[in-house]
């Protein structure tokens, strides 16, 4: 059986937002309950994690932002915006969260096999090059992706969190070595992720947004990735597949209104697994997910599906809105790509 590489948990005793903030430490207990429920015994590895270095972080964040964040935490932290906070230990927590992703990819490469799961907090996909927001301080999946593009490899990032990963999109907007594919509820925070956001002149079409209406079910999200995005992904031919693996599209999550079940995440994972070019090239990074019961069951179902383990697998969902919109948006996306090409010129 394929080994599960668990690079974490990181953030289980740091970056404490208090009992009323949904992005709290106990999320990681729920996530690890989901891992343990798989009863993997010797088929799970826990590599030692480390802090990402400033050089590694600086591939995606400005030096000025990193210095500000470190100083802000050193002064005691506080509320960064109505959603996002930092504590004195948050700088270290953020560096460990980003470092865990780097360790995960290194371990997969060393083994030449396995699937990595990176259960860390604070999450990352809203953090831009120079701004913290949406509970996120450092963009963990972006730091990991940039570590591979730095050595000439191509990275697919699939983001199925209920919120659009505005930070990841912005960081790789004009990067021809990263394909960013997102399904997300729209309208919803952060307000970005329209289908006509397709990437910059250096990477037209390498940002692929598939916004979904509230109430969308698993079959719609699956169609988005398996049908709408498949051609673009296969043409891109990634060397690595990284997943911004939020579980807040679950029907029980308090922060979104999509209607997915744990079984739907399992099906999505199996589709995404097909895009990996070979063994040891798929890593899932925890992003959102704030109902702890559904978080545990979704982790179990998702990882179980990837590993071929018979575990508890909730039924998939179907019949929600959004399929028609997906097809209409595909046309809008193609027109937007044409516009970018025309702006660039021959």
């Amino acid at each position: 059986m394929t080994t599960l590489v668990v690079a974490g948990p990181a953030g289980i005793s740091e970056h404490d937002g208090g009992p009323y903030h949904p992005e709290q430490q106990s999320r990681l207990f729920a996530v690890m309950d989901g891992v343990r429920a798989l009863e993997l015994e010797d088929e799970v590895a826990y590599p030692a994690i480390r802090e990402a270095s400033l050089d590694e972080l600086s591939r995606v964040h400005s030096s000025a932002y990193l210095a500000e964040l470190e100083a802000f935490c050193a002064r005691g932290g506080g509320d960064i915006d109505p959603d996002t906070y930092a504590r004195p230990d948050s700088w270290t927590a953020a560096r460990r969260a980003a470092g865990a992703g780097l360790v995960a990819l290194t371990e997969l490469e060393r083994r030449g096999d396995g699937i990595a799961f990176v259960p860390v907090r604070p999450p990352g996909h809203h953090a831009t090059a120079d701004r913290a927001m949406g509970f996120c301080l450092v963009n963990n999946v972006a730091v990991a992706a940039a570590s591979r593009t730095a050595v000439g490899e191509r990275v697919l990032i699939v983001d199925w969190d209920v919120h659009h990963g505005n930070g990841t999109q912005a960081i790789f907007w004009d990067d021809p070595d990263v394909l960013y594919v997102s399904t997300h509820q729209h309208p919803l925070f952060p307000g970005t992720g329209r289908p006509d956001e397709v990437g910059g002149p250096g990477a037209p079409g390498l940002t692929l947004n598939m916004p979904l209406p509230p109430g969308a079910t698993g079959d719609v999200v699956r169609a988005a990735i398996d049908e709408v995005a498949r051609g673009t992904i296969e043409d891109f031919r990634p060397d690595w597949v990284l997943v911004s693996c939020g579980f807040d599209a679950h029907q029980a999550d308090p922060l979104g209104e999509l209607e997915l079940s744990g079984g739907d995440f399992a099906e999505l994972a199996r589709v995404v697994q097909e895009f990996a070019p070979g063994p040891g090239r798929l890593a899932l990074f925890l992003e959102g997910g704030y109902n702890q019961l559904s978080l545990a069951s979704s982790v179990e179902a998702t990882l179980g599906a990837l590993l071929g383990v018979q575990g508890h697998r909730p039924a998939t969902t179907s019949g929600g809105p959004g399929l028609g919109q997906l097809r209409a948006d595909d046309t809008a996306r193609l027109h937007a790509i044409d516009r970018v090409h025309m702006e660039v010129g021959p």
Partner: protein
Amino acid sequence: MRAPVTIAVGYDGSPDAGSAVAWAARVAVALGARLHVVHAVGLLEHAGLAGHAGVDGDVAVRIAVEAGIDPGDVEWSVVDGDPCSALLRMAESPEPATMLVVGSRGSGAHAGTLIGSTSLELAEHARVPVTIVPSSHRSD
């Protein structure tokens, strides 16, 4: 014909935001501009976890009208996003705002730091003029 001028002002329900709305309304009257009052809804507020009952747009519009602007020249919008990003998008929309206005200390600001200060982040990133209305400013 000249394009209409629009001033966008952020409003989070704080007293400083109210002062900013009043200041922006008076400037809009002086310039013959429209006023767009914007409230950004974040992750917590969307989920009803923000620890307050919500921000009342009627209050914001009333502040603007009391500052002298015609009610027909005031628009209230609730948009998804963090406060800084939401205001920045107002300057990039199909009818972009030509000036952004914000109070110096909203509900979560930290004096003198870029991180944690919507006003300073806005000034750092905006491509149109930004006015930061100081917390000592009063509308009367």
